[in-house]
Each structure stands twice: as structure tokens, then as C-alpha cells.
């Protein structure tokens, strides 16, 4: 049985399709969400939660960015991008009406199929919440198909918390628990302070029934997966999303190799038991 599902892409995977920017949301001082719609005839772009696109800004370069929108919304693609360098800065500076190039979707997605009927534990760190947001949408769109939903989210500081309104809305859903924490408290933050693993003691988990999906900086995923195991989850029920340098996204350039895996083809979502030994290897 395939634990991580893929989807065939439409069109030539090497050529960008033209998408227009329809909406720009400033999530935090350095992070923006851009909502895109196709400019040309194309059957929208259906994607599975966890997949990513290659986004091209004219003359600047291409970025591998996870799709962070609602998979049920076939007309739009949403990306949450943090501005850390030239290419990301160019992308988040696009205005409504500008065109960007989009290739994809690429990669394996989160195991939504095999997680049916089970509790979903989502653990996100920083911008890692963006590739996981489609999971939450999917679960809330098909509530009967899944058990409880638990979201544990750690951000750097209060002003780095993403999707605040949505977090509050999700917390109000039935059978849903949303716990947020920050590493640095700040002056007016009345929420939790502490690293994301401190949230586990407040989470109402049923480990035997749970499938966990974690995304964030690699160090964070290492200690989160350890904590998930301490909580009683089996390695085969834990999934992580990995990241490496990516140039082509179609398995030809060789850059994204992680041990024997190509993160663009065999990932970015991996079942934890499959890559656990790799996570411990320095400079792999």
C-alpha cells in the first residue's frame, strides 16, 4: 500500500505555466501568502497536501515552495513564502496582476488516504505550518473521514505566528485541539512560551489511533519525532517533510538527494521509519 500519494502533473514538467497574482496577504513582517490563478487554459492544478511547486519570477530564479492552500479550491494556488534572500524577496514583492511561472505539482504528499479513520496529529514549527495547512483543510473538509485533529504549533515569537485568525477558527471546530507556543514571549503575549515539544503534555492524544505529520527545521523534526515516539506513536505512523537544495524538481539535476532518496520524487514527505537512520547522519 502506498503511504504517500502522488499525482500526475499536467503539461510539460520543465516549462512554467503562467499564473497571475490575485491576492497578497502579509502574514508576518517577513512572510507573505500569495494567491495565484492560471492565466492560460489549464485544468487548474489539482494537488495533494504536501506537494510543492517550482515558482519562477521573471529573470530572477525559481523557488521550490510547498502549496499551502485548500486542495478543494481547484481554481487557486496559495503559497506562503518567507523573504530570506533575492529570489524569495522578488516573489513576495509581486503585486496583484503580476505574472509568475509555476511548474508542478511535484513530490509525494501527506498520507491522507491511509490516515482515514484515524486521529491526525499535526506538529508544525515556524514556516513548517504552511505545508501542513492543506492537511488541516482536507481534514476539516471531510470531517467524517477522520478522527480527532490535534495541531501543535511552535513559532519564534508572537509576531511570527502564521494564520492567526484561522488558528482561532480551527480551535473552535469539534474534535479539534489547537495548541500554540512561541520560543520568545514578547511583551503582550499571553499565550504559551516554550519550545514546541512542551505542548505534548497538554495534547489529548490517543497514540494507537494517531497518525502524526511534522514539518519544520530539521533539528525541530528530530526532537519532535523523538517526543512522538515517547508519547507512544509507532515510527510507521509518523511522517515528516524534508528539504534539500532543489533545482529541477523532476529527478534529473541530482541536487536534492538525501541518501538514496530524491526529495523531489521520493519525498518531500517521508515515513519516519524509512529515513530515521538518515536523520542522525551528519552532513549526509
Amino acid at each position: 500500500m502506498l503511504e504517500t500519494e502522488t499525482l500526475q502533473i499536467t503539461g510539460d514538467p520543465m516549462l512554467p505555466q503562467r499564473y497571475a497574482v490575485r491576492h497578497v496577504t502579509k502574514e508576518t513582517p517577513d512572510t507573505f501568502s500569495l494567491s495565484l490563478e492560471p492565466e492560460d487554459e489549464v485544468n487548474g492544478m489539482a494537488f495533494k497536501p504536501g506537494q510543492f511547486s517550482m515558482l519562477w519570477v521573471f529573470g530572477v530564479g525559481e523557488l521550490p515552495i510547498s502549496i499551502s492552500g485548500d486542495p478543494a479550491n481547484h481554481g487557486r494556488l496559495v503559497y506562503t513564502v518567507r523573504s530570506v534572500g533575492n529570489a524569495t524577496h522578488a516573489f513576495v514583492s509581486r503585486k496583484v496582476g503580476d505574472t509568475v511561472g509555476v511548474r508542478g505539482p511535484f513530490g509525494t504528499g501527506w498520507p491522507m488516504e491511509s490516515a482515514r479513520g484515524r486521529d491526525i496529529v499535526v506538529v508544525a514549527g515556524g514556516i513548517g505550518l504552511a505545508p501542513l495547512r492543506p492537511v488541516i483543510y482536507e481534514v476539516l473538509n471531510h470531517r467524517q473521514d477522520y478522527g480527532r485533529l490535534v495541531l501543535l504549533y511552535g513559532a519564534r515569537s508572537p509576531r511570527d505566528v502564521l494564520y492567526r485568525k484561522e488558528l482561532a477558527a480551527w480551535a473552535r471546530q469539534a474534535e479539534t485541539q489547537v495548541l500554540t507556543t512561541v520560543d520568545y514571549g514578547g511583551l503582550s503575549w499571553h499565550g504559551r512560551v516554550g519550545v514546541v515539544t512542551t505542548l505534548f503534555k497538554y495534547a489529548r492524544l490517543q497514540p494507537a489511533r494517531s497518525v502524526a505529520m511534522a514539518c519544520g527545521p530539521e533539528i525541530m523534526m528530530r526532537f519532535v519525532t523523538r517526543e512522538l515516539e515517547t508519547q507512544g506513536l509507532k515510527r510507521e505512523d509518523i511522517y515528516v517533510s524534508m528539504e534539500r537544495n532543489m533545482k529541477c524538481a523532476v529527478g534529473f539535476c541530482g541536487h536534492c538527494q538525501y541518501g538514496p532518496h530524491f526529495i523531489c520524487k521520493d519525498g518531500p514527505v517521508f515515513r519516519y521509519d524509512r529515513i530515521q537512520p538518515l536523520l542522525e547522519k551528519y552532513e549526509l
Partner: protein
Amino acid sequence: MQAHGFEVYRLVEKTPKVIDVGALGSLVKALIVRGYEVIGPTVRDNAIVFDHIESSEELPAGWTDEQAPGHYRLKRRKDKAIFGYAVGPQSWKKYLHPADVKLWSAERQGGTFRILNNESQPKRPYAFLGVRGCDLAAIAVQDRVLIKDKYRDPIYGSRRDSTFIVAVQCTQAAATCFCASMGTGPQAKQGFDLSLTELLDDNRHVFLVHAGSERGAALLSELEAAPATKEHLQQAETAVEAAAQQQVRNLDNTGITELLYQNFEHPRWDNVAARCLTCANCTMVCPTCFCTTVEDVSDVSGEHAERWRRWDSCFTLNFSYIHGGSVRASAKSRYRQWMTHKLAAWLDQFGTSGCVGCGRCITWCPVGIDITEEVRAIREGGINGNP
């Protein structure tokens, strides 16, 4: 031990023939007449390289190569053998998987743009003359990666589909060759349109020719050829066997994946890292290395952009760079990545070894690192390497 298991092509059963040196010249002309650009070995810059040739006169008759770790010299032969050498610094990926190729271009139109699907195309299909067993195996390895996996690379695919291959059976080996232990040679068994075995002694200079495809057989039928005798076949077999016997290096592939995966922290990696310059020569000369990078460029006006694909190497720091730094910062991690990928991970990814035993990486390494020696050292637990 066999490291490769290729698909068995249905060999075209045609009677082997024998042609002379003149007919070899006609073979080249016939290919040109058919519209191919003939690429063959030729002497340039003190090496035997692959380049465009117009006639068989340009082949390196009377030359041989002397190879050793970090050493390559051309020497004059006493005879006029046309294929009396092993392989040079280049491989056929120079043509099938070009080092520099435009993928597409784009024109800006205000806030939007137009993409033009205008990748570079060669003017004429290629005919490769002089493909050795190891290089044939390497082409098959790259086929598996670039056109037989999840996605198909159209640049490699279109060039590959149209290329005519004339293989040459090796009758001598260089000191750095180890194709016999990799199961990729010296005998080239399949994947060619024609194969030549040079038979040269005091009395005669001929080539035993086998057809490996319909179009190969068709071309052969146009040449002045005599039927091959049992004696020709015997002489060819002996000569190719001699090339195998001549090889002094070998790579033991037994349990190679477990060996390399489990020895991630073996002290030998520190030993080789002290010698490796991360110059990337090995990846440039290796016939199976396929890694590339993409470069987005625009002109001064900012109205016109292009995307280019260039060869890249896992030995560069940039190769593994993600926000904040390179994952493989040390030379040790990069050498280990290259060798482990080539010999072990490739098996998990594509079902065969990535190495074909051509020995180029040994010859062209400026400090003479020998991949067969590195495997031996890890297998035997030793940490002392080449000084």
C-alpha cells in the same frame, strides 16, 4: 561479480563480416551521406578526445594512451592500429547530455511574460564512432536515469533516439580500466548498431563487423565486405579476452550497499578527504555522472530571460546549499557522497551500479585517488591509503 544486468536487446542475427581500412573510410562517408554528424576519437591537445570528424583519416591511427592514477600520456605505437587505446577524458555524455543547453526563453510583456519552448537542438543526428563497452554501459546507465524513470528528459531523449552507434571492442586495456570486474566489458554485447573489432597483425589490418540493429545491418550491406571466417572470430575473441586479462584493477561489488551505508563514519573517509581537492574532475570525466544545475539569466534590458542547464558537480559547496549553509560543508562529506551514490545508492535508485569501470576518475584525478582502492580499504578496514 556482475554489477550490471541490462535489458537484453533482441540482437539482430546477421552474419558477421570483415572490412578493411578503406571500407572503414567508406563507413564514415556513408554515415555522413545519411545525414549524420560523425563524432569519433581524434588527437587534440595531447589527448584522444571525441570530436566532429569528416573522414576516417582523422582517427588516431598509430597512437596509444598510457594511463595511471593522475597520469595520462599519448604515445606512438609501433603499428598503425586505429583503435589501439582505451578512453580519454571525454565521454559520450558530451553529446547526449550536453554541458550547456538552453531550456527555454521568455519575453517580458509589462507585468506578464511569454514562454518560448525553444530548447537548443543539434542540427544533425549524431553517429558515434568508437564506443567502448564501458561507454555503451554508461549510455545505458544514463538512459535509465534520464529517460526511463518517473520523468523523461526530452533533451537526452531526442538526441539518444536518433544517435547511430558504432561500438569498438577493446583489444587492450589501460592500467586504470576495471570494466571486467564491473561486468561492463571489455566485450560490448548489445546496444550498438554496428560493432568493430580491430584485427591487426603483420599480414593484414581488418575489422570484424557485427550488426546489432536493422539500420546497422543495412549500412553494413552497403560496404565492401567479406564474410568473416572462423579464424577471424577466434582472433577477435582472443584479442578481447586479452584486454580483460590485461586489467590490473578490480572493484569487488559484493554487498557494496551495506558496506558503504554502514561505514558512514569509517576513518578512511578522513584519509581520502585529506587528499581530495574537490576539484570535480572525476564528475566531469565520469560517463554516468548526470547532475546539472539551472541558471536563469536575463539581458541588460530585463525584457528577455533564458533558462540554461549546465553540468554541475556534487563536489561543489553550492551543490548542497540551503538557506544558511551547505549541508555537505566538508570535503569528506562530498567525497563520501560521490562514491556512495555512484556505487551504492545508485543501485537502490536505478537497479544498477552507477560505475562502469572505465577508470577515467582514477586517471584524471590530479592526486590519483583510486575508487577501487578506496572500496578495498573500507572493506578491509584499513585506513592507510595512497601516500
